[in-house]
């Protein structure tokens, strides 16, 4: 057997040495070979082919966007059997969003957590974009808090509650580290992810000091009966496996003038949201009348999520 193999090798060597490989011939074989490898991809599924060669969100023309949204709609129809609507609201002019949270009134009831999961079609593995920390009174160190408290009667004595979500930093470390620019900060201050462009390297998760980014390790499990059919390309559409996702201030709501879902769910009215450029907005009134602070100020991330006590 080894003799046979040796002969074959010898033949090959002789051939290759004796015959000079010409450039044109080399290119010819390359082209035919690569074509042979690409063709099966196209025949396997036309949709995955289309998805594979889809451009970055910012480079898509209006026509191409329409095609992409149609593809996503069809994909979800095949998968869940539900008709969904993909919206793509643009950033409003003269608007920059900011959020403020009153820690004196937050009672840790986690209603925002549940509302967030329902609005944004978040799979059970991820849970929610909002984490509520139960903190002992007297410290601001998040490491002293606990995420997994049980609350039959909240607020508990000697505790306060610190909800943490994406801070939508002006100097955002997560968007800087992305090797493919799949995440960026929009004109109105919202940090978004293009789920079709994300390669799932999780650099941004490592870079974020607020643990605001979540990774889909598995194919997301969605309860079809609770699926929110009003979806947006950059925010709450159903994510594929292997991409990052994060809070987008409920972009599909806020860009249509509504409040985010967490704010509407809050029973105490601790959450305030608005346009920082409008001098009459609630958020600007808070800046004038209250003493606000941000988390991990020393990192110079310039968060747009403010906390205050009153």
């Amino acid at each position, binding site marked *: 057997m080894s003799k046979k193999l040796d002969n074959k090798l010898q033949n090959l060597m002789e051939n290759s040495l004796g015959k000079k490989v010409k450039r044109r011939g080399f290119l010819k074989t390359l082209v035919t070979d690569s074509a042979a490898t690409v063709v099966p991809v196209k025949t396997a599924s036309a949709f995955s082919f289309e998805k594979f060669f889809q451009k970055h969100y910012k480079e898509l023309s209006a026509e191409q966007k329409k095609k992409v949204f149609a593809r996503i709609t069809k994909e979800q129809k095949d998968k869940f059997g539900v008709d969904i609507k993909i919206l793509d609201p643009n950033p409003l002019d003269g*608007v920059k969003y900011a959020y403020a949270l*009153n820690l004196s*009134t937050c*009672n*840790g*009831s*986690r*209603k925002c*957590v*549940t509302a967030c999961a329902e609005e944004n079609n978040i799979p*059970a593995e991820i*849970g*929610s974009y909002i*984490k509520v920390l139960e903190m002992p009174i007297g410290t601001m160190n998040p490491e002293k808090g*606990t*995420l*997994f*408290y*049980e*609350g*039959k*009667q*909240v*607020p508990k004595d000697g505790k306060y509650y610190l909800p943490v979500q994406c801070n939508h930093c002006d100097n955002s470390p997560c968007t800087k580290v992305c090797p493919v620019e799949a995440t960026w900060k929009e004109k109105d201050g919202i940090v978004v992810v293009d789920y079709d462009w994300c390669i799932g390297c999780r650099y941004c998760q490592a870079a974020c000091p607020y643990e605001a980014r979540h990774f889909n390790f598995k194919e997301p499990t969605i309860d079809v009966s609770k699926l929110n059919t009003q979806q947006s390309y950059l925010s709450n559409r159903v994510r594929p496996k292997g991409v990052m996702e994060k809070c987008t201030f409920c972009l599909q709501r*806020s860009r249509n*003038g*509504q*409040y985010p879902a967490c*704010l*509407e769910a*809050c*029973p*105490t*009215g601790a959450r*305030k*949201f*608005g*346009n920082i450029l*409008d001098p009459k*907005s*609630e958020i600007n*009134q*808070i800046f004038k*009348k*209250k003493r606000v602070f941000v988390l991990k100020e020393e990192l110079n991330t310039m968060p747009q999520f403010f906390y205050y006590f*009153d």
Partner: protein
Amino acid sequence: MKYISLFFVMLCSYTLVQATVVLEERKMKLKEFPCSSCHGDFVNEKAKFPLSKPHDSLKFKHMDSIKNCYTCHDKDDRDFLKLHAGEKISFDESYKLCFQCHGEKKRDWQAGIHGKQIGSWNGDKYKFVCTSCHEAHHPKFRMMKADPAPKHPRGKQSQAQGGH
């Protein structure tokens, strides 16, 4: 004529631009309103309207020095409230009564900082009043049951606090 129409257009545009704020109504939320259906005319017809269900379940824990219902309720007309200055106000305006003492909260509420607002951040709003969240007779915010906790990545045994 031209000026009048111009004025009219300006007025319309002003009302369109101006976002409306709707306050929550209190009367709709009260279970047995109007109060006069039981209380009636106290002076003459007391015997006619015996109170079948007096306010037994009413818990009062607001301010210790208040011992009298008529500090806030109007003595003669039970469907109304009364300010210290003597002005009769409807139950829908009960926040005016609160603001007699809670001036700081009044400023915050009027600016939209204190209290819940829903609707649109750049348009029409639905604003909750004091009594939407605080029961007037024991105003401390109610205790609640929290929604379930997130799943611990290492199961239940490591729920105890502290690292390692």
